[in-house]
């Protein structure tokens, strides 16, 4: 990498600069050295904490290592772990549960977040105060949120069932959120939406504010109906921002661990066992390091692909 850095800089940057501003080369460290010195610590840290362990994990994913039996000699099993995972119905079930969770959470967040952004964008009095209030949940620790929702959603002592009962007349102790096979998946969706709707809202709001007034004025001159203006101007202009929010939320909910681990810890049964929770169980409860390394690599590749698309979306929004 060092050779590339030097050659590239000397061609692209130093040579033309040196002609116009010779002073830069004379005093102090050269730009090339500084760029190198400034970027290296970050790259070195990430190599040590992320890349080196990742490579180690790739190696382990081809072994049958089990940390609870670490005294056994390391045995290489080729692609067995990967084959086991991909042919395991349980894993596919967990992936399905995760996919449903992502789909439901992100859809609700988009609808609520976009709607709220439209409302806030009307700039009623006090809108900035209320916006700050709405933003609070997304700043909290997901673990702490998951923990206190277990109290709120508790059927007897928690207030949630009573609020539902007040508005619908259903007896408060006739249903339970966290312990119920049908409702538990919706509970984690609800808490996720409670936390992250403001995220989508904030980004949509930025999209709405990026639309110049003159476009609406022109539409008004052309006598476009408000409905038409919404679908032909607002929606397409906000779309790049919305995509940004959707991609990021999809990645984050796909790898969700903390909130759900504390709220339902995967139960009842395995109805809310997201793939990260399965991974944690395989790695840190059953200590199947080889197997869980392979599963982790599969998740890595998925997130890496999604992150790639996300960064492209980021750059597109940046250019606006």
């Amino acid at each position, binding site marked *: 990498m060092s050779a590339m*850095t030097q050659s*590239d*800089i000397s061609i692209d940057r130093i040579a033309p600069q040196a002609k116009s501003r010779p*002073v830069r080369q004379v*005093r*102090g460290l050269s*730009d090339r050295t*500084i*760029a190198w010195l*400034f*970027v290296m*610590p*970050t790259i070195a*840290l*990430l190599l*040590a*904490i992320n890349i080196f*362990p990742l490579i*180690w994990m790739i190696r*382990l994913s081809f072994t049958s290592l089990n940390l609870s039996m670490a005294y056994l000699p390391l045995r290489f099993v080729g692609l067995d772990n990967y084959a086991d995972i991909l042919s395991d119905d349980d894993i596919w079930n967990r992936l399905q549960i995760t996919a449903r969770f992502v789909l439901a959470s992100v859809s609700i967040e988009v609808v609520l977040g976009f709607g*709220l952004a439209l*409302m*806030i964008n009307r*700039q*009623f*009095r006090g809108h900035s105060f*209320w916006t*700050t209030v*709405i*933003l*609070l949940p997304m*700043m909290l*620790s*997901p*673990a*702490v949120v998951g*923990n*206190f929702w277990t*109290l709120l959603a508790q059927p*007897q002592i928690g207030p949630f069932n009573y609020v539902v009962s007040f508005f619908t007349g259903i007896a408060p102790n006739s249903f339970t959120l966290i312990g119920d096979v049908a409702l538990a998946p919706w509970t984690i969706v609800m808490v996720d939406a409670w936390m992250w709707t*403001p995220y989508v809202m*904030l*980004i949509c709001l*930025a999209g709405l504010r990026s639309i110049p007034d003159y476009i*609406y004025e022109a539409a008004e001159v052309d006598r476009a109906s408000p409905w038409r203006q919404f679908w032909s101007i607002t929606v397409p202009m906000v779309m790049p921002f919305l995509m*940004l929010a959707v991609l990021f939320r999809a*990645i984050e909910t796909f*790898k969700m*661990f*903390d909130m759900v681990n*504390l709220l339902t810890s995967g139960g009842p049964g395995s109805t809310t066992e997201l793939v990260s929770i399965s991974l*944690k169980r395989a790695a840190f409860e059953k200590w199947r390091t080889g197997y*869980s*390394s392979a599963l*982790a690599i599969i998740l890595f590749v998925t*997130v*890496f692909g*999604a992150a790639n698309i996300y960064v492209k979306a*980021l*750059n597109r929004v940046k250019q606006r």
Partner: protein
Amino acid sequence: MTSASTTAHSIVEASPRSKALAGVIVILYAVVTIAPLLWIAATAFKSPSDAIAYPPKVLFQPTLEGYVNLFTIRTRQTPDFIASLPPAQTWYDRLVRSHDMVIAGPSKVVPRFINSIVIGFGSTFLAVVLGTLGAYAFSRFRIPLADDLLFFILSTRMMPPVAVAIPIYLMFRELNLNDTHLGMILLYTAVNVSLAVWLLKGFIDEIPREYEEAALVDGYTRLQALRKVVLPQAVTGIAATAIFCLIFSWNEYAFAVLLTSGTAQTMPPFIPFIIGEGGQDWPAVAAATTLFVVPIVLFTVLLRKHLLRGITFGAVRK
């Protein structure tokens, strides 16, 4: 709605009626969304029996028992034993004894809070220093493969923490870094540095190059120009970045629960395991949650203007 308003108002400005409607909807949502937090803050002032009352109590006699229970370990004693003790010296002694209990010592909450603070500030400081240098380099110099490097830096942050924790656990075990402050600080620095580089690059990009170039012509070296021209202008950005890093470290749970168990445990894995007699001690848990969340609320208010940047890695600037 709009037809009536077009004459009196500018076309893009919403009519008073639609504004009022929007206001009502947003305020309603805000009240609903904040209610759970208020409930928890209130639960911290309930007595343990009020906290698990059936049906739940909206009105109750406030008490500081939750906070006292959070900070102490208590043992249940017979009334005779308590009567034989010298008189209670403090209000919290009296409060505990009125429930036939005696304070046996401080709980672990203070060391856990200190861990959160040490690890939070340590990792934030390192991430901001590394991030500022990296961001300056990416902003001002042509670095080969800059886009790929920036993507690599960001992608490390997006990886699932449980998956990252598996090899980190093994590596830390070899290096004796499991459950140590240093290990957690290094790990959180690595996660935060990616955000710091991206955010600060955005902030530094906005500082006109002309200032530095003028300083260079005046005979400053690059490093002097960075220290005396760029850094003072980037102070707001650096502060905002630091707060974002601090919030991440403060809130992080997955690494903390998988890689720490005692010495270096932070608040998030600790709070759910505040146990009283017969299960979770809800007033104490709520008290811990309140104390834990208050700094975040203050930071959110401080960060209002920069939140959008923070959550989009600097891409959206409003």
